[in-house]
């Protein structure tokens, strides 16, 4: 299994509080992604990173920020959590063959509940 871990695995937080989710990989893969998964929407990309300090927005980036200060860690921050951000969050990683991305490997997910 690919070496990718997410923390925490479960979190309950109050509306308006900041929350940071961590994704850590041991594969030295170039690309890292944060997705959220909600019923009826499938997996939607929040932000992704294509290298240290290189990040970009996905389709549902409002209310989220990310940072990648080293290859192995990709942090997702909710600056001020809202109930609409209650979701399951997945981190994924993929490598580069020289021509294309490899398949993506996913972390176990973080279930976040904002009350």
């Amino acid at each position, binding site marked *: 299994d690919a070496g990718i871990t997410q923390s925490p695995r479960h979190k309950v937080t109050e509306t308006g509080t900041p929350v940071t989710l961590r994704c850590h990989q041991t594969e030295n893969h170039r690309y890292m992604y944060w997705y959220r998964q909600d019923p009826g*929407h*499938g*997996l939607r990309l929040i932000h992704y990173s294509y290298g240290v300090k290189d990040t970009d927005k996905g389709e549902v980036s409002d209310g989220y920020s990310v940072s990648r200060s080293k290859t192995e860690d990709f942090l997702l921050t909710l600056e001020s959590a809202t109930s609409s951000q209650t979701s399951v969050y997945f981190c*994924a990683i993929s490598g580069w063959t020289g021509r294309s991305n490899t398949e993506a490997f996913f972390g176990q997910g973080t279930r976040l509940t904002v009350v």
Partner: protein
Amino acid sequence: EDKVVQSPLSLVVHEGDTVTLNCSYEVTNFRSLLWYKQEKKAPTFLFMLTSSGIEKKSGRLSSILDKKELFSILNITATQTGDSAIYLCVHSGAGSYQLTFGKGTKLSVIP
């Protein structure tokens, strides 16, 4: 905007049945199509398809890509209750870092 559409969205079959899951796509700069299985946790990788007409197989699962008609199918023969999951079809584009997911097909296999 790249789009991946899966059908059906849900499917209930009996053990032993054979099922076919469909995935059509409209994308720019196609590179590969991937299939994942998701049970109650993270999606796990099944197949990557890059060439048209070449079947990928793993046990009772197989998949094939038609780049002319822009679709892929995932076949599962002799289904078992352990095959119950959401199956995700994903496009990985050339020159793009992003993965475009379909909404998934929820397969339920009943004894």
